[in-house]
Structure formats: C-alpha cells, structure tokens
C-alpha cells in the first residue's frame, strides 16, 4: 500500500515538472513578500505609534509600594507594552513647579539625549532640559537651588552637569541621581511610581479596570490625551497590514489553485483510469497533499535561509530574530491556505465522474 502511495506521489510530483518549479517559486516568492511586508509594516506601526507619543510616552502612572510580586501582576496584564519603575518628586525650580526624576536604572522609554555636559552621577549634580537652560540662562557648571514642593525644607544647591537636547521627544523634566532626590525628600517619603505604556490596541478603560482589580492600594492615574491618537493611527496601520497580507494570501491561494488545476488537468485522464480500476478517492488526495506539503517545506527552508539577506539587501532594518519569528508564525497560515487550495482543486477532480474525466473538454 505504502509503495503504491509513493508511486502515486512520484507521479504527482513529476508529471509536470515545469509547473512544479513554478509552484515552488510562487510559494517562495509570496511567502517571502508576506513575511517581509508583515515584518516591515509591523515595525512601521510601532514607529508610527512612537512618533505619535510626546516626551512622556506613558498611558498610566501607578503609585504604590512595589515588590516583585506586584510588578509581575502588572506585567502580565494583557495589552501592556512596557513598564518601568521610576522615582520622582515635585519641586520648585525658580518660579516653576516641576518634577525631578531619578535617573532610571532599567531600560526606559524616555529619551534622555544630552545637548552638552554629562549625565548627573553624584548626589549634588543635576541635568536640566534645554528649554529651562535657555529660559533662565543656565550653563553647564552653574549651581542652582532646588526646593521640594512637598516639604518645608530649605532649597538645596545642585551643580548643572548637563543640558538635555531641545529636540522633539526629548525629556522635559530635570534629572538627578536617586541620592540627589533624597537630599530634597527623605527616602521613606519617596514613593516609586510605575509608568505603564500600552500597546496602542488595548482599550484604556478596560486596562484601568484590570489595574484596579489588582487592589493593594494602588493610586492609578490615566494619561488619556495622546493614547486615542496613537490608537487610531495604529488601527489604521493594522488595517493596512491586514489588508495587504490578506491580498497576498488571496493571490497565493489563487495562483496555487490555478497551477494545481493545470497540473491536475494534464493528468485527468490518468486519474479517470486509476479511479476506474478501483483506486479510492482518498488515495489520490493524499499524494496531492504530500506534494503541497513538500513545496511548502521547500518554501519555508529557502525563505529561512535567504530572507535575512534579502531584508538587508532591500534596506529593511528588521533584525534576523524578528524576521524568522514572523516566518515561523506565518508559515502555518500559508500552509493552511495551500492545503485549502489543494483540497478545493482535488475535490473538483475527485468528484467529477470518471466518464467526464475521459472527455477532452469539460
């Protein structure tokens, strides 16, 4: 039985070699474009969303006493893109009321590009934004007085070690070390905040509800102003990605179906004879599925080896891991489409009566 199946498979594969090669190339080409386009557009979506963000790219500020367990609970909430724990305190800076941030020790979504000087490294150093430096005529090396707005302590002197860039998106708050903040407010009164950035797809209110359900006395503040804009843009680019990928899938399914149909058509008389002599329908279906599977394995293998190089060659900045992750996920969708096309074409032949298969035109 297995031997006959293999012979039928061999016949299926070799009876129209040119069409087989075209089919393999079509799968490779469309799979590659599907993955490359998907990866590129996904990256573009993230960039579009990032571009919509201000210098404070967070959607929630949550205050509470954070430990690993609480952080884990928040991290597992659906829709969270990024979380960071930041210590900050309110200050008076000349006549302005501002927030002074402790320089984040972990990965941060804040852009802290220096225009000049260095980042504050000691307890008496501070980095200020370009707008403040310009507005008050402050230079690197100047000593300025900062007063906490939470206490009645005397102003504390800080040396300006650096000035942040005035570019769009760069942080607009002054920065110091954690020790610098404790010079203004005692450590036991410095409550850390969790700054949360959502993925742009999740509903803000439902995320807030999930946060509230955690309990533990969290003080939650939503920053909704720019989220809806980012969300709208992301929805638009998501629709674009889905539409284009759907189009590629449809074209692939159609071209595969046409090629499979042509291959099948060229052997329809033989299929008729095989069915006449008693070959059950599933026996003819299985080799066709095996053929499709083999073509897709070839397509996947070749794409796996060549895509990173192609991406580099066409100037896509996608990293190799992201690209191959997309490929591994997308191959199943593609295989599903390929098997579906095979099934549709095969059903048409297998359920056509044998006498009809013997006719020249039908």
């Amino acid at each position, binding site marked *: *039985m297995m*031997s*006959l199946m293999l*012979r039928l498979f*061999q*016949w299926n594969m*070799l*009876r129209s070699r040119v069409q087989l090669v075209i089919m393999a190339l079509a799968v490779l080409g469309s799979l590659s474009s599907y993955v490359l386009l998907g990866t590129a557009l996904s990256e573009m979506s993230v960039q579009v969303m990032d571009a919509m963000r201000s210098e404070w790219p967070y959607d929630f500020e949550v205050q509470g006493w954070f430990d690993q367990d609480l952080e884990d609970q928040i991290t597992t909430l659906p829709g969270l893109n990024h979380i960071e724990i930041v210590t900050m305190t309110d200050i008076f800076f000349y006549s302005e009321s501002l927030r002074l941030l402790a320089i984040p020790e972990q990965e941060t979504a804040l852009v802290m590009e220096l225009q000049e000087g260095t980042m504050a490294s000691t307890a008496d150093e501070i980095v200020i934004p370009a707008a403040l430096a310009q507005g008050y005529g402050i230079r690197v090396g100047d000593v300025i007085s900062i007063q906490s707005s939470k206490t009645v302590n005397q102003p504390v002197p800080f040396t300006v070690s650096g000035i942040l860039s005035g570019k769009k998106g760069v942080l607009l708050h002054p920065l110091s070390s954690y020790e610098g903040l404790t010079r203004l407010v005692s450590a036991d009164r410095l409550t850390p905040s969790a700054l949360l950035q959502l993925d742009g797809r999740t509903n803000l209110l439902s995320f807030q509800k999930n946060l509230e359900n955690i309990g533990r006395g969290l003080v939650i503040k939503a920053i909704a102003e720019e989220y809806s804009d980012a969300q709208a843009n992301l929805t638009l680019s998501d629709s674009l990605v889905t539409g284009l990928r759907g189009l590629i899938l449809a074209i692939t399914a159609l071209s595969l179906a046409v090629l499979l149909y042509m291959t099948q058509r060229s052997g329809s*008389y*033989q299929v*008729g*004879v*095989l*069915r*006449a*002599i*008693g*070959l*059950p*329908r599933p026996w003819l279906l299985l080799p066709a599925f095996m053929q499709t599977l083999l073509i897709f394995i070839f397509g996947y293998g070749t794409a796996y080896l060549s895509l990173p190089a192609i991406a580099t060659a066409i100037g896509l900045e996608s990293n190799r891991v992201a690209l191959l992750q997309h490929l591994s996920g997308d191959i199943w969708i593609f295989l599903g489409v390929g098997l579906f096309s095979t099934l549709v074409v095969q059903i048409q032949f297998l359920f056509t*009566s*044998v*006498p009809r298969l*013997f006719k020249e035109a039908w």
Partner: protein
Amino acid sequence: MEQANAVMGKGISRTFLMGETPVRALHQINITVDAGELVMLLGPSGSGKTTLLYTLSGLEKPDQGEVWVDGVSIYTLNDWKLSKFRSQCFGFVFQSFNLLPTLSALENVQIPLRLLGSKQPVKQATEILTRVGLGERIHHKPGQLSGGEQQRVAVARALVAKPRIVFADEPTGNLDSHTSQEIMALIRELVSENNSACLMVTHNQEFSSLADRILHMRDGELL
C-alpha cells in the same frame, strides 16, 4: 438466477441533457455476459456503446434499471465499496493507453496488484509482461515504448489480477491494423486463459471472428 452470468444488466436506461434537450443514450437495455465469453458491442458512433460499457462497469449510474455482477447489484454499493469491487472484479482497457508516464511498465502493471494487497506484485507483473511479449522492456517508461507496446502494458494491467470481467473500450482505436490484430488476439487469449468475461466496444467489424457473441447497437438500443 442472476449469479449464472458474470454481468447482467436489466432495463437499463440513461438520458443526457445536451443543453436543454434530453438525449436518450440507452433505452431499456437487457444484456448478459457469461464467464469466459467475449462479447463484442458494435455500432456507429453515438449509438450508446461506451455509455453502456461505463454503466455495466459501475462508472456511470443508469437512470433506470439494475446491473448485477457476480450476483451483486453494484449500484447499491457505496462509493468506497464500489471502488473496491471494481478493483477486485473488473479490468479495463481504454482506447488511450493512459499509463502513468513517470512509472515503468512494471510499476504500471503492479498498480492493481498493490491495490489488492498482492504479496508478489513484482513477480506477477513480470510474468504477465513477459506473457504479452514485453519481458525485455519491463523497466521502460511509457514514453520509451511504441503505441502497440503501451497498449500491451495496458492489457497486462487490466488482466494481471485475473479479473472476473474485462471491459475494453475501443482498445485498438489508436493502433495500426497489424498492431490492432496482435492486441485483439492477445486479449482473446488472456480472457480465455483466465476464464474472464469480456465486453468489448468497437466499431471495427474486422475482428468479429474473435468474439463469442456480437451485439449491435443503434440509437441507444440493442438490435
């Protein structure tokens, strides 16, 4: 009573639609073919010969009537069982040889044997290919064989499993007269050897001497 004949068709009628016009292909046909008997079905094109052959071989269900093969009413079987029944009882020779082009002669002839789960398909296929005069060409692919040789392979494929009935539809239609004679003689010989029944459709009266019985058809009716 039905079991005395290898094949028996009773009251077979079949009508096709040509556009919107119904065309009567078969009308109230009663036919029997006995074991070991070669029946030739003669008639002009469009007389319904091939439709009758397809109907008796389980390939085309009649609108009316019944077909019995070895006492089994074949159109009461489901598709799976009918396929199995065809593989066990029927052999087919068609006008176009339609061997699988990527397989050798030997592999083509093994197909029915492998379908039946034969334990010695290679031996049996080699034997019959030798019997039809292709012992030296068993590993040749169809493209490397002449038309006559391909039809010999097709005959070998039809008869290798010693079927109860052989259905042959214009088996010499694509061959020259000399090769046709050889193929007809070969079918006659093998059918007799196996004691198979054979229903052969042809419009060539030249070979009528090889038949045990000749039936004539016209306008969907047996004359």
